[in-house]
């Protein structure tokens, strides 16, 4: 394999080789808050172009894990490798620029901006941020990206509404739209269906399915129906450690998972 690769560096074989490497990898990742160990030596991988879920009871370390990945928290130990580069300890803006985007468990948008501006500002973050001379609405490429992101989450019809005036479900989807507008390689969704009605949950599930066709997604979710239907792979966290990992079918049958999580 490596011999073939060295003969022709641009061969499709090498490309496929790179593509099969995990897009995200953590090695012995640990976070301690004082005496409390929120994550202890987590070794974790996300495969390219898959939907990977992290589940676990409250306090299992899911949000802490997300916060580590996106630079909100500095890990106490271990490494995070994203797309072949170490990103441990980078700040959240640097991590965003590398290609990891996230949505938040508690809606985190610009409430006093229009829906369009919420995604437009995210779309312009790749190269136009320091432009002081153009009018912000005159950047055609950015407008197109923003429209595409809104279209993907089904909010194009509400582009001119104030974000604060959207329904809870729509705001949750706007969250995803903002993340998409940064054109990430990995999208991390923190409980995207939290607080949604059944109808909204179903719509968001379909939405994530569509997005997943050309994006790697890491998702924290409590709704088991959503997880089982969407995900290729599931990791179960408990007390800051990995309890089990496998396909939805394997996780459903795993006696230890049933004991700590699914039965309760």
């Amino acid at each position: 394999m490596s011999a073939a690769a060295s003969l022709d560096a641009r061969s499709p074989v090498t490309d496929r080789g790179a593509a099969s490497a995990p897009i995200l990898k953590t090695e012995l990742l640990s976070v301690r808050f004082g005496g409390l160990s929120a994550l202890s030596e987590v070794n974790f991988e996300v495969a390219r172009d898959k939907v990977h879920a992290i589940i676990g009871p409250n306090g299992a370390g899911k949000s802490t894990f997300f916060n580590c990945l996106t630079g909100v928290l500095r890990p106490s130990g271990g490494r995070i490798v994203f797309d072949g580069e170490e990103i441990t300890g980078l700040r959240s803006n640097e991590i965003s620029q590398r290609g990891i985007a996230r949505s938040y468990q508690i809606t985190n948008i610009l409430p006093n901006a229009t829906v369009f501006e919420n995604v437009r500002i995210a779309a312009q973050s790749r190269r136009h941020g320091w432009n002081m001379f153009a009018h912000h609405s005159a950047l055609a490429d950015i407008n197109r990206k923003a429209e595409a992101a809104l279209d993907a989450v089904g909010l194009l019809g509400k582009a001119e509404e104030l974000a604060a005036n959207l329904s809870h479900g729509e705001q949750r989807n706007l969250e995803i739209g903002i993340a998409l507008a940064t054109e990430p390689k990995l999208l991390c969704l923190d409980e995207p269906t939290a607080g949604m009605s059944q109808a909204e949950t179903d719509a968001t599930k379909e939405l994530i399915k569509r997005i997943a066709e050309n994006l790697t997604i890491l998702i924290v979710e409590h709704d088991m129906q959503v997880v089982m239907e969407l995900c290729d792979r599931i990791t179960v966290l408990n007390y800051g450690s990995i309890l089990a990992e496998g396909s939805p079918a394997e996780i459903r049958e795993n006696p230890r998972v049933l004991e700590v999580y699914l039965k309760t």
Partner: protein
Amino acid sequence: MTTAPLDKAIPLGRLRLGHSAVFWLGFCAVTVLLIAAPLVLPEFWRRFLTEVLIWGLLAMSSDLLIGYTGMISFGHSAFFGLGMYGAAGALLMVSPPNLWLAILLGLAGAAGAALFVAFFSTRLRDIYFAITTLIFSQIFYVIIFTWTAVTGGENGLIFTRPHLTIPLLYNARFTSTTLHWFVLAVVAGSYLILHRITQSPFGMVLQSIRENESRTRAIGYAVERYKMMSVMLSGLFAGLAGVLYAIQNEFAAPDFVYFLTSGDTVIYNVLGGIGTLVGPIVGAGFFQLARQLLAQAFGDQFPYLIPLGLVFIATIIFLPQGILGFARRWLNR
């Protein structure tokens, strides 16, 4: 009204290019009025109006921080003062005094102060940022007040006004009318630049920081650097106001570096309406006019800050978006 004090009358992103006809019409009308004003006003009020424009520029510069970036600066007296002393230095050292050199050195002084303040204070937020800018401006005040050999200490510096020169085209003494027009040109130009900056992609990042700092960081913006740039730009325009004030009054005095000047600047913003650029100019005009009329009615010793303080409190309670925000809502009704 459920709006927080920092909210704007127009939501972020709703201002599109299509508004430009109304904008330019309004801009031209006000500019024509201000050009014509010195031709009809008596000498005293002509000077007064010029001074209001200068305070307006100072207020507008701090609006970039307060209204658009959401950082309340109590240190604008330092930028204003450094602009003033920079201009004074240029006018005293070079003979014959040169207008453009004064502006250049004034801007350099303000930029130096702004770089210093920006570097140390933008790591902090909210009240901590405000207090830090206040402390830094007081440091500059103490240096200027005590370094008598260079700054003239308590007495300040006195110099003569440079000629109004446009190289190869024009060279004459300033009259109160040409000075007014010169100040108007600088202030109007600054307004157009600041207006464009606030509507640019960069300006939208500043407003995004004001609305939600952590989210702005999460979508990939190095928030500290944007804040530093905002402080620098704001300081530059405040320094420009200081240069104009020095040229108008032919002195630089430490009183203007004292934090009371910064306090007045914040008051102009709140009175006029933050996050509007024009509002702070209106606020400065209102404040200065009220002060002047009170002094004329009750004498120079009248404690004018007491009634103005009451007006300030009433504004915060009843017109949280300031005079301009109120006028805009009233016009839209």
